[in-house]
């Protein structure tokens, strides 16, 4: 294992977690923040998804559809046989993953309940990035990042360029291609419920505690405690802690995240940073080009004038037709 900064932090987190398993969550969180510096988006609201606790009941899907007045999701476990994506009529989708031949995490624990461990479930929805690519891409501010966490959408400002779909590293925003006045559709983090002090609909119905809603700093601390405190059980990675510069939906798992179809090519930088260099070009162009170009103009004019003088002195009208 090469000791990158991230791996170093993991090791640091793991060792400190081991010593901190017992103390209260809040104190643990404080120590962590002291230990590795401030957590991005510490005060934003966040959800920790513990995929080891999800049983695939899809209560969250039903609650989400009801809250957002969308058609009820299909009933019965048969739908889990096929991998589904979120779409214009489903803001969250639970998928089942068969993980019989999984990585070493499972093989190390052969005495575990094999039947239960052969399947994993994961809910997908917008990750609500701390620094969202989609919102920074939107020229109309139709997608907007709220200070308390949610990334919201306002169809009355959207011109339907779909650049947000290009810019989201998680492939989240979906489009109503069938409609004549199409909208971008994605999970809203139930921003309106949050404004009333309520939890997001999906998290409030989860029967197993797979979804924990809270302050991002607390969720990161809780995730670290579970993951680095149980290195035999969990994959030593918190998906969303650093992905895309940090997301407000955090995932932990006992199987590699690729097995749960979580995107592996998301880079650890905030996506809006990717265009920073390019966005620095216009001011430079605007201040430098006009004087530079006028300089060229003056120079070429002077040269033309000199040539004319030269020609006249020699009684030479070459190059000028009468």
């Amino acid at each position, binding site marked *: 294992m090469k000791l990158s900064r991230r791996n170093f932090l993991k090791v640091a987190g793991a060792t400190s977690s081991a010593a901190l398993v017992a103390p209260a969550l809040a104190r643990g969180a404080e120590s962590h923040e002291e230990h590795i510096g401030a957590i991005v988006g510490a005060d934003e609201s966040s959800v920790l998804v513990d995929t080891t606790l999800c049983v695939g009941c899809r209560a969250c899907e039903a609650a989400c559809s009801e809250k957002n007045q969308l058609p009820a999701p299909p009933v019965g476990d048969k739908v889990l046989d096929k991998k589904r*994506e979120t*779409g214009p009529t489903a803001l969250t989708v639970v998928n089942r993953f068969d993980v019989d031949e999984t990585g070493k995490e499972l093989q190390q624990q052969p005495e575990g309940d094999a039947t239960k461990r052969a399947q994993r479930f994961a809910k997908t929805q917008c990750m609500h990035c701390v620094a969202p*690519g989609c919102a*920074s*891409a*939107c*020229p*109309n*501010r*139709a997608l907007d990042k709220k200070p308390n966490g949610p990334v919201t959408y306002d*169809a*009355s*400002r*959207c*011109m*339907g*360029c*779909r*650049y947000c*779909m*290009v*810019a989201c*590293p998680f*492939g989240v925003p*979906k*489009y*109503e*291609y*069938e*409609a*004549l*006045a*199409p*909208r971008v559709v994605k999970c809203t983090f139930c921003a309106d419920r949050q404004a009333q002090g309520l939890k997001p609909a999906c998290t409030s119905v989860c029967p197993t505690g797979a979804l924990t809603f809270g302050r991002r700093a607390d969720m990161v601390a809780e995730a670290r405690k579970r993951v680095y405190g149980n290195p035999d059980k969990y994959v030593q990675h918190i998906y969303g802690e650093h992905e895309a510069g940090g997301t407000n939906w955090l995932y932990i798992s006992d199987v590699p995240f690729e097995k749960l179809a979580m*995107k592996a*090519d*998301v*880079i650890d930088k905030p*996506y*809006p940073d*990717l*265009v920073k*260099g*390019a*966005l620095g*070009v*216009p001011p430079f*162009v*605007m201040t430098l*080009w*006009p004087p530079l*170009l*006028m300089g*060229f*103009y003056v*120079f*070429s004019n002077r*040269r*033309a004038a000199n040539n004319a003088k030269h020609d006249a002195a020699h009684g030479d009208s070459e190059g000028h*037709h009468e």
Partner: protein
Amino acid sequence: MSNVNENALEPRTWFENKILLGMTGKEYVRSLLTPINMLAAFAVACAVFMFVWRFGWGLAATTNLDQNTPWGIWIGFDMMTGIVLAAGGFTIGATVELFGLKDYAPIERPAILTGFLGYLMSIAGLIADLGRPWNMVFVMGSNGTASVLFEVAWCVMCYSSVLFLEFTVPMFEWLGWSRIHRVAKKLLLALTVLSVMFSTMHQSALGSLFLMAPGKLHPLWYTPYIFILFFTTAVIAGISMVIVESGLSHKIFHAQFEGQHVDADALTVGLGKAGAIATFAYFFLKVQTVTDNHAWGYLKTGWGAWWLVEVLGFVLLPSILYAYGARNRRARIVRIGGVFGVLGIALNRLNVSVIAYNWNIPNHYVPRWSEFVLSFGLVGLGVVLFRFIVNRMPILHPDPAYPQEH
């Protein structure tokens, strides 16, 4: 385009003179019945038909776009490619007005007109693609965003206006409005500075749009410096298009060039020299991208072969043709280089925005036939407008009433 005015005994109306080329309505309609015009009419009908279908039935009915592929050829070809091929407006404008290379003055107006029409058609394609085009007004008001698309939108709008104003110079000559013509002509210098400024910004920003899609655009094409590549290709496209276009115009509209001392071959050779330098520099930038990304391994894959087709066949080859043609003063070779140059830049834009985009998902987007119909229609419409204007206004030849003193 011929002067059918010999039998004009009774005076013609203004409309007949200015719009109908000095013919009566009946004569004019009869003169339109040529095979070329039939094809043009068909293209325009295609564009109109597609607009009705698109806005009456929606994007799902008219395109193959899906949740993974939000941008198809209406963005990748009409917008990305259309705009780069219209770059001749600012490159030649700068050459003539700012760098003082007055020899190129005869091709300045056609280049500006092509640029203007190119942008109009691109914007038309964009409107078809936008889901809610009526909300475009919000782009103008929403400052403070960190959006590259915001920059693109503003610059395209400003530059189109600048091109229109530049185009008013010949238009006022045609209308005979000499006072305002003098004003427009005085403004030309300032407009040219603006045109270079806006072009630099939005041509490069079109590339920056893809900076946000690192995993989606293939590593052979993705680079943090994509905006520099896009600007370079805009210059190359500008030069190449002017070479191709002036060659074609001289062939098709040669009657209009009569009596002018334009040495088209010498101009072409000169452009070839500039083209050789720009294209060769671009070739090295392309290679540099692969080194920067440590992407040499990909060259062994099918994508690598495709990259080589683009870079060897449509970057290196035109640069060699340009250099050879310019050195040996062979305008024909330069023109062939121009064709490869134009195709190469178009291929690059399509690769970035459509072909190598989403390279690693199983169901790759293939445009629906109806998408091609709109693009074909818009290109046709552009050509129709170009011919219409060139046959009436002093674009390819100076208006005798307005001496081209400099």
